[in-house]
């Protein structure tokens, strides 16, 4: 059944949209990530103009992360104090990201930067995750007990000025790395249409040393708040948020996420991380090839100006 998307100004198959929303939702439930990094490229490859894909997926990421964030909140596994710092700096970063998005779009280099951004970010994170999970797996094979790093080990930047006590996370650290992290995630997330959960979670664990029971909830809340702000910013500045497209993806996504979450219980942590790493690397390689291989057509066209979807 075809459905007409009023902002993208083309019609797509409803079941295809709900289907990819569901498939990505399943993976996001399985791995505990927003799924934006899979959904945005999938939409772009299936013909949705890049600005519409990026802006609409931000809406879908809000929906995908909301139910998770709520359940973590009920269990008291969100550090609200830390979240406020992350969210406020995240919104600041998102404003910069959306402004850069408009500039790149006008200059005709948006597609390039989206590809480059995905390549660098996903390639880097995917490689790190793969190395880490393979190492854990090998150690387990050798019978060595894997010990989580102690949360009270400090890095040099924890001692920077403006130290704040985050009671729930049992941290007394400088807010500078917190704000820097929030701004960076906000910038990258709004530029690429991803929630950034898969960068934020490792960053909270390894850089800020947030205890494990607080990490996922805090990261989910940050993703919800920042992507909500980004959706509004995209709606104002580029006017490319397609509510109908986002809604189809949301419906599939929220359903798929539930099944993914239950399927995730049958897998071990490092297995999940290894699979996610492979997935992330595959997307990165796909983007890398699109940059390096000779394109089928070296010419392309776009509409500019009001209502344009460059």
């Amino acid at each position, binding site marked *: 059944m075809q*459905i007409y998307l009023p902002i993208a100004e083309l019609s797509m198959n409803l079941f295809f949209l709900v289907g990819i929303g569901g498939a990505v939702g399943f993976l996001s439930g399985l791995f505990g990530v927003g799924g934006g990094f899979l959904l945005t490229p999938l939409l772009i490859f299936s013909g949705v103009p890049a600005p519409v894909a990026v802006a609409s997926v931000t809406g879908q990421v809000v929906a995908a992360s*909301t139910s998770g964030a709520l359940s973590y909140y009920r269990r008291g596994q969100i550090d609200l104090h830390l979240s406020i710092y992350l969210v406020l700096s995240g919104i600041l970063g998102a404003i910069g990201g959306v402004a850069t998005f408009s500039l790149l779009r006008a200059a005709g280099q948006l597609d390039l930067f989206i590809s480059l951004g995905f390549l660098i970010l996903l390639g880097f994170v995917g490689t790190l995750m793969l190395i880490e999970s393979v190492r854990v797996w090998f150690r387990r094979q050798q019978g060595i007990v894997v010990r989580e790093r102690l949360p009270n080990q400090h890095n040099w930047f924890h001692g920077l000025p403006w130290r704040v006590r985050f009671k729930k996370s049992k941290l007394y650290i400088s807010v500078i790395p917190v704000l820097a992290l929030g701004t960076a995630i906000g910038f990258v997330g709004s530029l690429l249409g991803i929630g950034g959960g898969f960068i934020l979670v490792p960053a909270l664990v390894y850089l800020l040393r947030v205890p494990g029971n607080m990490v996922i909830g805090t990261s989910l809340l940050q993703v919800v708040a920042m992507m909500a702000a980004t959706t509004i910013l995209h*709606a104002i500045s580029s006017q490319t948020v397609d*509510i109908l497209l986002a809604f189809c993806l949301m419906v599939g996504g*929220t359903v798929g996420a539930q099944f993914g979450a239950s399927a995730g219980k049958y897998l071990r942590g490092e297995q999940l991380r290894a699979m996610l790493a492979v997935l992330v690397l595959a997307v990165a390689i796909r983007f890398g090839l699109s940059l390096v291989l000779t394109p089928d057509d070296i010419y392309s066209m*776009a509409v500019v100006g009001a209502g344009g979807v460059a």
Partner: protein
Amino acid sequence: MRAAFLALLLWVATGPALAERLVTSVSRTEVSITSSFSGETLTLFGNIEPEAGAALPYVEGPYHIIIIVTGPLQDRVARRKANFFGVWLNSQQVTFENFPSYFHVLSDANLTNITSPIALAELNMLPQQQARHAARAGWWDTITFGDELVRLMSEQSLFGVNTQGVVFRSNTFYSAQVNLASDAPPGPYIAHTYLFKGGQLITEKSDGFSVRKIGFERFLGLAAVQQPLLYGICAVILALFTGWLGGVVFRR
């Protein structure tokens, strides 16, 4: 002034002698885009009749028809990628202002069999000409990027030349089909019909139709442009609600 008057006199003297007029119509004047819109086919049809008060009560062919269907005008850019240190990126772009978003030429025979290339060019009937008029660049870029833009538009069926697009049902009655795909740009369209006889343009006629979103699609499209802040907030509320509902429904 005198020359103009003479020309007018000449036209009045010779015009009615040609003595044909076109009666044309289009099957729909409004194409509505609804949620299930997946393209639409319109029929343009018309009849060639003797002009009122003409010397002969009938018309004599053979006639040829060329119909130009033009969609709403847009500003477009064509971009060319180049390889910089192993990475392909957009290196050059040319802007085309007031460029038709839809341009189809329909005729009943090869265009060059109908009239001379000069006449075709004067009437601005060829897709490549649209690009050349709209380009904002030097002559070389205008030609290379213009031709590529027309090729890209043709690949998406937004541009096209169909020399079997007009079918004569009788000596004087013709019909033609216009295909609008689901990604046809919304806006006003003009179907301009030209009647040729013996290589000469005899008369011409325009019909308009509009493609527009109606109902919910129109509401969304307008809201996104006119109330972007409210639209964005609604999108977020919808997302939060869907996420919350999903959590409630599937809670185990």
